[in-house]
């Protein structure tokens, strides 16, 4: 039975993927928490007196994040006010149960909790969306809507920043996925530990677990006896991310430091100046930051509301084409001029940009 590498004399309980060290329970807790504290201070994720919303799903990552932030905030006097923010996508049998776990977190960690639903924000639950779009592209809707929902919730709660539970494995997975898709705009920004600050791009987001391995998060939750909810999203088996995830886990088995190397590569990559990247603007319909005239959420929502659920799937040039065609049809028929929120109105005002 190996002894703790920290020479404390105790029995080791875990082999660290990052370093290969064998640590006992207490030394592991200490290393785990200290490294997150180091990340937070080194990257200046927070400032004193900030209100921070923890994006809480009830899963392992956000549960560990809430626990550790509460602990570090007290231990190192960050001076933060911590709140929990949860999104209810409206997926029967998935989110219902995990929201109960979030409520338990609220009680255990004594933090206020705000739950926002897709139904309230967009008028559609994921169950209803899947009924319309099927199970092939539903994750696109869910992901786009969740991102905006967190921002809207954060604005409602008047917080200074949102902390998410993305871990090292998640980020490496996203780097891989963006490489596989050739999505240079996302590849460039997906490793940033703080996003959305300074550019008028909504409320800043931070990832305190960016350098924390998934294995250690699960082990930490287990040995700390933290209650979390785990399930498979009932719609997820078809998600593209699953392929990147399997590839990554296979690589990680050969050598866990591959995770850090992929993140390092993603951080160091510079996109050629000759590559044209979309510049960010604000959605003409809702004002949310967007690379297109209409943000993805508005396009997807418009598609759903018009019975054209596939509108926002695929290339944005196709959306322009469909909406432009509709615009001319509508100019002739005048059918939706009266509709208050019809996107044609916005498009008419900006028709030059559409060409």
């Amino acid at each position, binding site marked *: 039975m190996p002894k703790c590498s920290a020479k404390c004399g105790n029995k080791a309980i875990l082999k660290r993927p990052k370093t290969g060290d064998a640590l006992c329970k207490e030394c592991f807790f200490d290393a785990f928490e200290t490294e997150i504290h180091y990340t937070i201070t080194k990257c200046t994720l927070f400032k004193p007196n900030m209100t921070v919303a923890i994006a809480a799903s009830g899963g392992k990552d956000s549960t560990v994040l809430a626990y550790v932030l509460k602990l570090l905030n007290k231990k190192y006097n960050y001076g933060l006010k911590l709140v929990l923010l949860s999104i209810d996508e409206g997926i029967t049998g998935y989110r219902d149960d995990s929201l109960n776990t979030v409520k338990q977190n609220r009680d255990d960690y004594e933090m206020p909790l705000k739950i926002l639903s897709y139904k309230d924000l967009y008028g559609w639950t994921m169950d209803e969306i899947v009924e319309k779009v099927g199970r092939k592209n539903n994750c696109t809707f869910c992901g786009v809507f969740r991102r905006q929902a967190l921002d809207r919730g954060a604005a409602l709660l008047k917080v200074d920043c949102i902390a998410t539970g993305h871990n090292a494995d998640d980020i490496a997975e996203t780097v891989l996925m963006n490489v596989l898709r050739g999505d240079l705009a996302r590849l460039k920004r997906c490793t940033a530990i703080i996003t959305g600050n300074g550019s008028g791009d909504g409320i800043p987001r931070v990832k305190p677990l960016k350098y924390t391995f*998934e294995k250690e998060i699960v082990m930490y939750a287990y040995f700390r006896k933290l209650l979390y909810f785990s399930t498979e999203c009932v719609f997820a088996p078809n998600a593209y991310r699953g392929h990147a995830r399997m590839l990554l886990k296979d690589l990680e088995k050969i050598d866990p430091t591959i995770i850090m190397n992929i993140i390092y590569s993603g951080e160091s990559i510079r996109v050629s100046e000759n590559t044209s990247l979309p510049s960010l603007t604000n959605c003409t319909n809702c004002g949310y930051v967007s690379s297109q005239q209409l943000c993805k959420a508005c396009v997807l929502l418009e598609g759903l509301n018009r019975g054209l659920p596939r509108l926002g799937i695929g290339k944005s040039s196709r959306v322009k084409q469909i909406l432009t065609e509709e615009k001319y049809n509508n100019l002739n028929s005048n059918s939706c001029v009266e509709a208050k929120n019809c996107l044609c109105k916005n498009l008419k005002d900006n028709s030059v940009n559409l060409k």
Partner: protein
Amino acid sequence: MNSLQVNVEFGGGAELLFDNKKTVTISLPEKKEKWTIEHLLIWIKDNLLKERQEMFLQGNSVRPGILVLVNDTDWELMNTINYIIQPNDRILFISTLHGG
């Protein structure tokens, strides 16, 4: 000679592959060689795992992303699949692949 009694546990979503059972006490039949975790995995595949084997197993081991603890110690410190099972060992499989 007696059979070998072992407590097998599932967590982190792995229990979803086993009728939502989190704890199973099993008796491994007597055999010539010693029981290792590699043998246990085959036994689990034949006796407990009814569907979607690829979600739990890969090759002669567990699927990458499933953590294994023997009596609350990481199996990576205990020779992984080659660990020789002792009577009344508690062997826990935790999935990291399930979300929240």
